[in-house]
């Protein structure tokens, strides 16, 4: 039986990442800043590498909360840098963003080699393409083990950080629901009304960085983008109320993750291939497919409604 120790943690990690990213993605998609998610998910890498390196110097091993701190600091520094470039230096905003996040990622890749962190805890391939398959829960053999506290000592730590990210996202949305509605849908009013919205940009940026970092370790930079953007963009195609939008984005994210996991597993199950395909890639692809399906079905339905009879 390989389900409980190997497949179950990967599945849970994918679903947790999907729920957290799917909800957080609304902060980017509804402000038409989806590519900022791409930028942030790339910019966390150098912070993560430096934190892991310092951690291995100080404690002999990396310490996960410290990694989180490093990644969030890097993301905030990166966003501050690109805002400074576009506002104070007058550079073309999109080009400035593109160059800054590419440069941050490049720095992270070089630092990985230079500090010798490669192959110890992190490597470039996992940073890019994710490592859902390497999450192994050694002490888990059946569902009964989930009820035993002792088995949680070998739980992959990525699961813990993803759960934390999901909780943080839920709390953030619960606290700021009304403020978010104004800030996301009526930026002009939110500026004039002074509804305590000054901190929204910073706090939402911090949340995106935190969630991206948690998901980044498990599923990779590019899948983070897919999970941030696709569910919220798909929900935005049909949702007419804020609550519907939020609920639909989470449910769609879960569906996309499940579809992707099935897609990765299908060739093995049908006996076409000798092993599964990379799950993170499959989820990103599935997210795109689901979005296109919803888009096309919406267009068709509208067309049917328009034609008389």
């Amino acid at each position, binding site marked *: 039986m390989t389900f409980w120790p190997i497949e179950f943690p990967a599945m849970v990690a994918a679903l947790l990442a999907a729920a957290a990213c799917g909800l957080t993605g609304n902060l980017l998609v509804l402000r038409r800043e989806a590519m900022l998610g791409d930028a942030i998910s790339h910019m966390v890498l150098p912070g993560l590498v430096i934190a892991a390196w310092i951690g291995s110097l100080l404690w002999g091993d990396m310490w996960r909360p410290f990694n989180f701190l490093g990644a969030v600091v890097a993301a905030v520094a990166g966003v501050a840098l690109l805002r400074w470039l576009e506002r104070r230096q007058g550079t073309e905003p999109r080009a400035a963003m593109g160059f800054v996040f590419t440069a941050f990622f490049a720095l992270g890749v070089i630092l990985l080699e230079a500090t010798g962190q490669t192959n110890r805890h992190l490597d470039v391939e996992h940073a890019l393409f994710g490592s859902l398959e390497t999450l192994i829960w050694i002490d888990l053999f059946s569902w009964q083990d989930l009820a035993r506290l002792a088995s949680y000592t070998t739980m992959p730590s990525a699961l813990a950080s993803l759960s934390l990210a999901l909780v943080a996202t839920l709390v953030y949305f619960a606290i700021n629901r009304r403020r978010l509605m104004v800030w996301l849908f009526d930026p002009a009013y939110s500026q004039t009304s002074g509804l305590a919205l000054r901190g929204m940009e910073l706090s939402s940026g911090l949340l995106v960085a935190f969630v991206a970092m948690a998901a980044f370790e498990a599923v990779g930079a590019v899948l983070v983008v897919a999970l941030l953007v696709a569910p919220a963009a798909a929900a935005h195609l049909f949702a007419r109320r804020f609550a519907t939008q939020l609920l639909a984005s989470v449910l769609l994210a879960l569906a996309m993750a499940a579809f992707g996991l099935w897609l990765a597993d299908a060739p093995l199950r049908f006996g076409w291939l000798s092993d599964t395909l990379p799950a993170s*890639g499959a989820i990103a692809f599935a997210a795109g497919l689901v979005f296109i399906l919803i888009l096309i079905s919406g267009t068709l339905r509208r067309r049917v409604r328009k034609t008389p009879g």
Partner: protein
Amino acid sequence: MTLIDLLLLTALAAFGAASGALGVFLTLRGRTLVVDAMSHAALPGIALIGLLAGLGMVVRSGFLLVVGALVFAALAAVVILWLRRQERVSEDSAMALVLSSFFGLGVMLFGWLQLVDPSQSLGLTSFALGQVATMSLGEAWSLLAVALLVTLVIWAGYRGLCLLVFDADYAATTGWPLARLDALLMALATLLLAVGLRSVGAIMLLGLVAGPALIGLAWAKRMPQALGLAAASGAGACVIGGTISLEGTQVATGPAIILSLAVMLALVLSARGLRRSRGVCRSPLLRGLDRSDSAPSLERQSGRPQGEKERQA
């Protein structure tokens, strides 16, 4: 350094110059992130050719890999254009969606290739981050050829391209074929990224397009100067990055190129900071762009640095 290394570096430098110059037009037209999405989207094309070769259907060659990359990059551009025309899909969402789902497909196909025939494995990481050492001579020639082509087209279509990026409305009223010029710009970008994937890398290509352009536009006051500066910094960064990558075996080429560009940009921006006391803040080239925010026009009248204006406000 062997003769072959020297040839590779020359080709890479020419490529860097061409993408730097083209990057200026792409930046002024606001198209840099589309290039990023397209270069990510080219990966499944490469994986598909590798897979077909692994299954014994075609013989793998550098030419076929470029064709595969071209097809998928063009497909991505078409999908982005189509998505952008839909209601309720912003341009950013369209790009991010295409970028991530095509890239995901590429990762899947590379995984499949690994299972079918591990000996055919092309190394996904080297295509993502670039590795000049894996380049064949044929690919070096293709870099040179594309660089030459891009230079020729920019030289021949200079007036049209300038009108396209600076004053599209005027160009349209005087009968310039704007749609065709725009398509030409994107076609050149597609060609550039398809041949550059192996040496610069899908993720790093954006930096080589945007970085030199930022440097050129930050310093130059006139378009030819900006183009020259961008081409020079692109070529210089490619030489530095390529040398580092060829000498130190572990370093990927793309990140080395981008980091040298980042150092150059920092130098140019601080040099401009010194020049700023004369009241020149924004690049005059960027002022010509019709942006929705009205800040530049205010600044042009007062001629004050932007920072000062903000403090007064």
